[in-house]
């Protein structure tokens, strides 16, 4: 297994020529990108261009038809995949938060460490309380998801993911379902994380945020990466007409 040979100077996530179809619809048509440890990359692009599909392939929520994805040197799309190991390394936050509605905020955060990592309840609770504090929700530990605002739920979801102590975080349009006022509180949380050196892969429509936070921007359209580069070059000096058109519409 190449796993043991992986060193932090190699890409933490490496995507090579990935192709993915749903039935006869080819959604990813040969996508490649590398993410180094500590890097923050943003994927932008029009609706339906395959952004969600791509990041869902990274933690094996979707399978692929061709190409390869490795996380810390470990191939994701193989029969021998240890899903548990993969999912310990890769955290994911969804557009619709997807909290467990029958558990309080604290229980949501504690659950995976107890059930999956087999931590003691006391230890899990200690970590969970610290994480809830970190996402600035102290005082809301006992609230159920239904009693929290969208922004608060999304921050619980981030804390829940962080409780597994992942090496890379995937964010799929995590502010898209939020009111404009609450978008900021979630973005601040992500920014904190990025500044602490968390490796992040974000799908976002928040261009200002992408520009500020990303080390690298990827623009996808119809299943291919049309253009990519550091934010400054990407936003101010886009080359491809499709990128230009997209940016002109959205900025």
């Amino acid at each position, binding site marked *: 297994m190449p796993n043991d040979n992986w060193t932090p100077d190699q890409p933490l996530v490496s995507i090579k020529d990935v192709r993915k179809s749903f039935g006869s619809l080819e959604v990813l048509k040969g996508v490649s990108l590398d993410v180094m440890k500590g890097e923050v990359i943003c994927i932008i692009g029009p609706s339906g261009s395959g952004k969600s599909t791509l990041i869902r392939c990274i*933690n094996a*929520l979707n399978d692929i038809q061709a190409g390869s994805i490795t996380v810390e040197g470990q191939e994701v799309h193989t029969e021998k995949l240890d*899903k*548990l190991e993969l*999912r*310990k390394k*890769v*955290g*994911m936050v*969804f557009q*619709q938060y*997807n*909290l*467990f*509605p*029958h558990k309080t905020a604290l229980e949501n955060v504690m*659950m*995976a460490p107890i*059930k*999956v*990592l087999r931590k003691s309840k006391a230890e899990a609770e200690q970590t969970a309380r610290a994480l809830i504090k970190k996402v600035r929700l102290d005082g809301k530990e006992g609230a*159920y*998801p*239904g*009693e*929290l605002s969208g922004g608060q739920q999304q921050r619980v*979801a981030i804390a*829940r*993911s962080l409780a*597994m102590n992942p090496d890379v975080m995937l964010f799929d349009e995590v502010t898209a379902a939020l009111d404009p006022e609450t978008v900021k509180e979630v973005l601040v949380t992500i920014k904190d994380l990025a500044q602490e050196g968390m490796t992040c892969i974000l799908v976002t429509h928040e261009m200002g945020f992408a520009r500020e936070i990303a080390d690298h921007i990827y623009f996808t359209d119809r299943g291919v990466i049309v253009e990519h580069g550091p934010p400054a070059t990407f936003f101010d000096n886009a080359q491809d007409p499709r990128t230009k058109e997209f940016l002109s519409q959205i900025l």
Partner: protein
Amino acid sequence: MLESFSDFFRELADQYPRWNFIFFYEPVQWDRIMKGLRYTVVLSVACVIFSVIIGVVGAWLQGSSNRFVRNTVQGYIQFFRNTPPFVQLLFFYFALGQFTPTIVGADGWTETPIISNVGWAIISLSFFAGAFNVEIFRAGIEAVPESTQEAAFALGFSRFQVYKEIVLPLAFRVSLPSLNNNLVNLVKTSTQAMAIAVPELLYQCVSIWNDYPSAQYPTMLLLFCSFVFLVGILVLGMHRWEQKSRIPGYGG
């Protein structure tokens, strides 16, 4: 006080021959009723528990990736849902009962089957109500959003853990009203066990009014009251449970 209670019904029976509440003044009859009530309760509780287990396991198997397993569960549901429970009971007891091993008694002469008529009644009724419970839980499971389960998978939960920790608790809440109806039906259907001589409440009551025709109306009255009471307890319990499992801020 107790004396005057039984005296009252003894006199009532003397004056109005149709209203012979014999079980209120003859201890032997009272014991028959009590014995019947005990059997009914045991039968009901056992069937409620087993049918819920069958429902949970069946609904889990229906989500299996193995087609054979899914088809088997589907076949089971079709059979038990589309045939009369009474016929099922007779079939289990008289047909399957013939092929179950027996234990020879100490005298080397008497043979007792390892599954008694009570056992067959529990098995048959549990499978009958279980078939409905599978469908009820499946509807509840389908109401749990795929995305909630996906979030659990992304956290490293196994399929079994997702079922146990996320899907079941949420599905249960959705299923409670239908489950409630089915279990009420089950308790009432338990009277059919009379047909294979399970000495439950109906069996005892019929025996009493066969022995004492003057006690027929009172015994029927008693039957109705007992079931209103038994089902009432069940419904109250389910209602409490529903209240307790209500999640703040979570509709449905």
